[in-house]
């Protein structure tokens, strides 16, 4: 017993180390690769030695670095949001995208930009929260009476997603810069800057810390409502707290980068495949691998049609849709 659990701890430790290494490599690639190619040596000097005149330094400090940070934070947010959703709904297809939360947040963000153009960019995040809660509330209503299989709930979620994004597309018509909006709607890091970082990081920290704090309770909840109640857990409170965290994580991510799909779906599954069912491990690892996935997807998006920068949301959709197929195939076995 003891040796088995310590063996597992060693394994998890190595996964952490490996994940962090992969993330660091990804972050460096994300800073180095782009329209202006910058050597690694120049990158390191410009990060630590400040000289006014160098063009590379300016690019790194004003464009690449904030973009990389936003990518990593958004990836972590979405990964953890997906893990929480899959745990509290016990639905393998649950994720901010599939259950309409991303679409709800983007609808409210676009509405706020169109109807309140003078609003501060820091307030946009609150609209995103309301929208995320709105999208979540609709799917909650669909699921409330119970009896919908995971697959059907996912179908309901996707159709809510279609509905909300249709309305969003309609609103875009009232905005002059439709192409720019479309770029945002596809989920993109192109316009991330230090202001985006400032908008995002407090919410990321709150959400990620709260999710970690809740991870023990989530592990118990994932065993099933009856078991959790039997173990003395207040199931509804845990679920409510987790839902709030999902809204904070997904909403803040959408408010900065637009709806990026499939990260929250894929990452928790990949993590569970490696480390099993303990959410104390799954949640931090989902944050780590969410950051990894989005960082690499963004680098890939910059390379696909170089020098054109493809929105990262398109890259994750192309990666994620086959994964969704695979999960749908597996979820069929769970049909009642």
């Amino acid at each position, binding site marked *: 017993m003891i040796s088995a659990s310590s063996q597992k701890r060693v394994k998890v430790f190595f996964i952490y180390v490996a994940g962090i290494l992969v993330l660091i490599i990804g972050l460096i690639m994300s800073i180095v690769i782009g329209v202006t190619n910058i050597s690694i040596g120049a990158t390191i000097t410009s990060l630590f030695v400040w000289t006014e005149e160098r063009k590379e330094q300016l690019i790194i400090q004003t464009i690449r670095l904030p973009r990389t940070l936003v990518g990593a934070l958004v990836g972590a947010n979405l990964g953890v949001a997906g893990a929480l959703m899959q745990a509290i709904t016990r639905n393998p297809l649950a994720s901010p995208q599939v259950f309409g939360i991303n679409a709800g947040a983007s609808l409210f963000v676009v509405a706020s930009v169109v109807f309140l153009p003078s609003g501060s960019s820091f307030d946009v995040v609150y609209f995103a929260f309301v929208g995320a809660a709105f999208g979540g509330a609709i799917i909650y209503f669909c699921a409330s009476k119970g009896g919908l299989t995971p697959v059907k709930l996912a*179908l309901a979620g996707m159709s809510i997603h279609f509905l909300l994004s249709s309305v969003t597309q*309609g609103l*875009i*018509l009232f905005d002059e810069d439709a192409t720019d909006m479309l770029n945002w709607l596809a989920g993109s890091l192109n316009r991330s800057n230090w202001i985006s970082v400032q908008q995002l990081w407090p919410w990321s920290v709150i959400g990620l810390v709260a999710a970690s704090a809740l991870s023990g309770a989530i592990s118990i909840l994932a065993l099933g409502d009856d078991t959790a109640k039997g173990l003395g857990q207040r199931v509804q409170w845990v679920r409510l707290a987790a839902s709030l965290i999902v809204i904070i994580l997904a909403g803040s991510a959408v408010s900065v980068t637009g709806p990026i799909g499939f990260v929250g779906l894929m990452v928790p599954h990949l993590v569970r495949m490696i480390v099993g069912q303990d959410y104390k491990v799954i949640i931090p690892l989902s944050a780590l691998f969410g950051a990894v996935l989005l960082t690499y997807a963004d680098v890939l998006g910059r390379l696909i049609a170089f020098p*054109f920068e493809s*929105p990262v949301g*398109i890259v994750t959709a192309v990666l994620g849709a086959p994964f969704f197929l695979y999960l749908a195939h597996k979820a*069929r076995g769970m049909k009642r």
Partner: protein
Amino acid sequence: MKLRRAPVIILALFILTCILAFFSVGFGSKYVSPAETIAILKGSDSSYTYIVENFRIPRVLIAILAGAGLAISGTILQSILQNPLASPDVIGITKGAGLAAILVIVFLPNSPTALLPISAFLGAALVAVALMIFTRNSGAKSSTLALVGIALGAMCQAATDYILIKFPVNANVMLLWLAGSLWGRGWDQFYGFLPWFIVLLPLIIGMIRKLDVLQFGDDISTSLGVKSNRTRYFLLGVAVALAGLCVATVGSIGFVGMVAPHIAKRLLGPKHQYSLPVAALCGAILLIIADSIGRGIAPPIEIPVGILTAIIGVPYFIYLLRMERKK
């Protein structure tokens, strides 16, 4: 019981379609009153004659054809797949058609107009083939079909988004291919649409009896002497062609192909000799109403018709999911 009212209902729907089409002509950035419309139709000269004759009338006619086409395609798909959730958009074939169409528009801008429907059909067919491969084991009966379709649709959508962002076009053109819209459709598109429609329609009418049998499933249809697989693939091909044709003309308009067949079945039951024409009329009515609202609600801005059909269709889709659960 229901069937005795059939001619009455079909006639009533037909008249409703005509009335709605007539009023729809009036809506748009310049409102034309019904009296003026009649005057223009009678041939009197008005400042709106040009608008009505060259923009409004063909547009309404296209709405009728596209609504009917999507509805017929949806009816066939629901019957041959025996899946009430099937429809050209839910199973992703409209997205495939849209992607193929936008590829042709962006990369072969000087190609003949006849290429557009053909490429849209090929795109739709490709998605349909992929769908068949992925759902082979589950027999295309469960909601897996819809889920696989959504995933395939998401991939086509991602590619469409990519092309639209990489090669920026006019916002209305963009929304045409994202949401489906009748913006700027005129006689050219109508005459590109009509012949294909006329070719496909007799094929479907000839298969009505077989559709009735097929919806009971393979075992019963085989015992009734219908070669079910061959017929099914043939009908699937026709449905895909029809959907692709509509998408090539008006973009990937959602939910009409799903909602209209259900309304038809509710009105006159599952016999296709009734449900097909009723579905076609309902589809036409839905699209006319949605397009009129889209043009009339906030002129001069046009809300793409696909957005309004989604707003009408999604609540119904969720309702269907909830109903299906009770079975």
